[in-house]
């Protein structure tokens, strides 16, 4: 599949935004303390801005945006519709939570805790829906994989944890030990799941040109695709980055997304150089872009079988 920048930016940025907001609310619910109200509002604002920027950029790839409002109408069947509904539903809930905290003088009470917990669940549901949009597409076996949705969720929560930590460092002057530990555990878990995922999409399986044409006993080869120019199908589905480039980018992804943040965070604690976590965040953000680009570039839609591929 051809990677579209608007979709890469959307999934990466809104993933961080929702992850950040999840940690913000979760830490308040766990500790029962809100801390400086001003800092809470600041972090909340940044998280919501990231999520909103992502959502806005996702409407950029629509060919007919004037009908975008209709996208909330098929909640029962469409994961894209579910994502739209949850992402919009999130705003009133998180704003109500912030308002209630403000009115209550920065103190939690059971009612506010329930609102916070609901906002947490909606943010979680939004990220899961983003993953399921891809995981539900049967014609793309690299996406129709049980690890795709867990990876979307893991990357959102992992990047959110680091974003939460650097904002705490910037606003309060110290790194939150609990969230940083969680970040390290989540980062290593993501690495493990990603490696298992890459292994599983490397297996030769799925549809072949034989099952696509019905000639399951014969050897089939495309002679003529029926058109001598580009088509919507070839533009949309036939994207070849080259095996070597993909392999190099996989290593770049592992270095930027996992190795560099891990080394920098460990260095932060060992040598007490707190600013290194800012660099870790930049590296993680770039790494996520490479990861999302590869997620598209390595996905091979079965329509490619009608354009000359031998197997999916």
């Amino acid at each position: 599949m051809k990677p579209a920048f608007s979709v890469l930016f959307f999934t990466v940025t809104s993933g961080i935004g929702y992850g950040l907001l999840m940690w913000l609310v979760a830490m308040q619910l766990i500790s029962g303390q809100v801390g400086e109200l001003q800092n809470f509002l600041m972090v909340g604002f940044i998280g919501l801005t990231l999520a909103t920027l992502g959502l806005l950029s996702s409407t950029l790839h629509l060919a007919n945006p004037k009908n975008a409002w209709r996208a909330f109408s098929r909640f029962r069947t469409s994961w894209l519709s579910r994502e739209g509904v949850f992402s919009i539903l999130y705003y009133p809930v998180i704003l109500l939570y912030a308002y209630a905290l403000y009115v209550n003088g920065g103190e939690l009470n059971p009612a506010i805790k329930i609102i916070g917990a609901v906002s947490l669940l909606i943010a979680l549901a939004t990220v899961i829906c983003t993953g399921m949009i891809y995981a539900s597409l049967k014609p793309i076996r690299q996406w129709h994989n049980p690890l795709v949705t867990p990876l979307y969720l893991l990357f959102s929560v992992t990047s959110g944890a680091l974003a939460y930590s650097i904002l705490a460092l910037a606003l309060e002057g110290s790194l939150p030990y609990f969230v940083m530990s969680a970040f390290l555990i989540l980062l290593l878990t993501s690495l493990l799941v990603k490696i298992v995922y890459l292994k599983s999409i490397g297996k030769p399986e799925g549809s072949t040109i034989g099952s696509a044409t019905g000639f399951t006993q014969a050897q089939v080869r495309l002679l003529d695709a029926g058109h001598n120019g580009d088509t919507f199908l070839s533009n949309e589905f036939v994207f070849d980055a080259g095996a070597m480039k993909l392999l190099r980018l996989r290593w770049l992804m592992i270095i930027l997304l996992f190795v560099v943040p891990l080394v920098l965070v460990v260095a932060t604690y060992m040598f007490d150089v707190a600013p290194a976590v800012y660099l870790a965040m930049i590296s993680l953000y770039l790494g996520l872009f490479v990861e999302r680009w590869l997620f598209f570039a390595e996905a091979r839609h079965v329509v490619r079988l009608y354009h000359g591929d031998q197997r999916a």
Partner: protein
Amino acid sequence: MKLGLVIDLDTCVGCHACATACKQWNTSGTIGPLSDQNPYGKNPIGSWLNRIRTYEVKEPSADPRLPSADPRLLSADQKLPQAHQKPPSDNQESSCGSQQFDLYALATKGESALSFAGINSATGAPASKTVHMPMSCMQCEDADCVTVCPTGASYKRAEDGIVLIDQDKCMGCNLCSWACPYGARELDEEQGVMKKCTLCVDRIYDEKLPESERQPACVLSCPTSSRVFGDFDDPSSDVSRLTIERGGKGLMPELGYKPTNRYLPPRETAQVPAMAKTKQPALSKLKKWANRVIAR
């Protein structure tokens, strides 16, 4: 009703008349226009609802890098009737009736896959065939393009099974085209909405047309009658009869979309014995050579 098409891969000559007739009818039909971008320029591009590809189909080679027959890819409902599952008999002539199914036959371990497309490598005839394959919407029973649509623009009609797009509701997100394994959906860049085969819903129910013309444009235009339109729910219809008689098959059954359209495999063709090379004695060769030289 379960309306759909049967496409005969034996007689299709790949002339693209169906695609052209489709474009001509539908650009001014209910879902029209079907726009083209840069139609007379260097890289013309446009929306088509039917595309024809040409394949070389030949005997599987021993090359392990190329995918061969894989029994896992066939779902239970695609298995052929019992009569056609008997092991290949040594006497090719006597089992001729079922040989045409060999092309689409179930691959089972130990079964010889030498005979297909009516060409038997044992006779020395080239075991390869050129097949033209037109593809439009398969009007799937489990159409994911409909379920993924967030706006409700894509829908499948309960009364006849035709999958359609409400042009006024589509927001052009492309997700339905991603969900379609057959490449049946194409975005109209001019209007920003998705287009697909309607099975000429604006023809087949039009009572102002003579009854013989109440068929999809592609079916009417096919010069070799390789396309047949009808109701698969009616066991006496042409499409049902042809599917059973010729072993019609849906594409990519392993994805579980339950496509309605069926493809008929190429028929068993008469075996033309290859001309035998006879050994000629050296003297007659010399005579022939001498005659040729003198004739000059």
